[in-house]
């Protein structure tokens, strides 16, 4: 029965490794979200996109526009986080990328009251 125990042990090791990877996935950990650059995996785009924002008369962000989102990203969820200089979230919102011809400009709204002057970075992600 020892050989059976050993096989079971090896299977357990494999299971632990699999669970470890799955745990990282479930946490949504990515290098890009940590502000350490981008990490393209697969999907609709492998390039960093450019975002701009609009403000109201008080200088608060009313919307973020992500430019030239490939058509292949249609139906995916585009999430935007407004960050300060310490990469602390000042507000976050998301939307579903719609269909369009060529590159889409995707508008994300609903960040609450966030002064544009305080925003020093955008953290963006695309998910299915």
């Amino acid at each position, binding site marked *: 029965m020892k050989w059976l125990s050993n096989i079971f042990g090896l299977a357990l090791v494999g299971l632990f490794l699999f*669970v*470890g990877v799955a745990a990282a996935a479930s946490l*949504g950990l*990515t290098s890009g979200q940590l502000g350490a650059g981008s*990490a393209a*995996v697969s999907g609709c785009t492998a390039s960093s996109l*450019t975002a701009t924002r609009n403000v109201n008369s008080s200088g608060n962000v009313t919307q973020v526009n992500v430019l030239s989102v490939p058509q292949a990203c249609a139906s995916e969820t585009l999430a935007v986080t407004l*960050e300060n200089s310490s990469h602390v979230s000042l507000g976050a919102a998301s939307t579903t990328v719609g269909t369009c011809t060529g590159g889409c400009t995707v508008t994300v709204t609903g960040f609450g009251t966030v002064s544009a002057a305080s925003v020093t970075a955008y953290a963006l992600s*695309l998910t299915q």
Partner: protein
Amino acid sequence: MRRFRIKPPLRLVAAAAIGTLSFGGVGYAASLGFSTNKLFAWSQTLTKGTCNQTSTTADDTYVQQLNPTSTAGGTATTLTISPIAATQDYAFIRFNLSGCSIPTTGGADSAVLTVNVRTAGADTISLFPVTSSWSSSTLTWNGVSGLTIGPTATGTFSASSTGAKTVTVTADVDNAIKAGNLWGWELRATSGVASVAVGAAENVTAANRPSMTLSYEK
């Protein structure tokens, strides 16, 4: 066949190794950006700056209903604004932001226009955003109808006393940066009956000239 068996002292080491490998798997997956459904993540860092505007980048004029084909810009030291029927005057002020080198993907964090009332009167002066091109050397009363002017006032100030008046114009300047040009504002009296005047870019006193503080991102 010899059976493989880990002796008790090594079992703890083996367990630690398994834990380390699991942790390594988590870290490795994270470093690759793997997730159940995340396809792409990136960040964009913004650069902040200021680019305050003075008379050297200003262009201004005023148009007169009484002289509908005449231009008044270029040399006038004050800009007249009048709500008086049949003799209405509108002033126009803009700034050339090209020296700021702000791309159209940038934007205004804060913008405040300052004008200096030189001739006071009990008028409320409203600023309406202009989004089509004009030049002080050619703009006339008749030419105003060909401009694209926003229907909603960006802001107002009271001209009941002389001195500096400020109006927050952040949203207008933000839109102008994205459009590539700032065509400024039409200044019109929306209440009152007096003819007032604000300092022009050609005013002999620098403090009386239009100016604008601008903080931006790009």
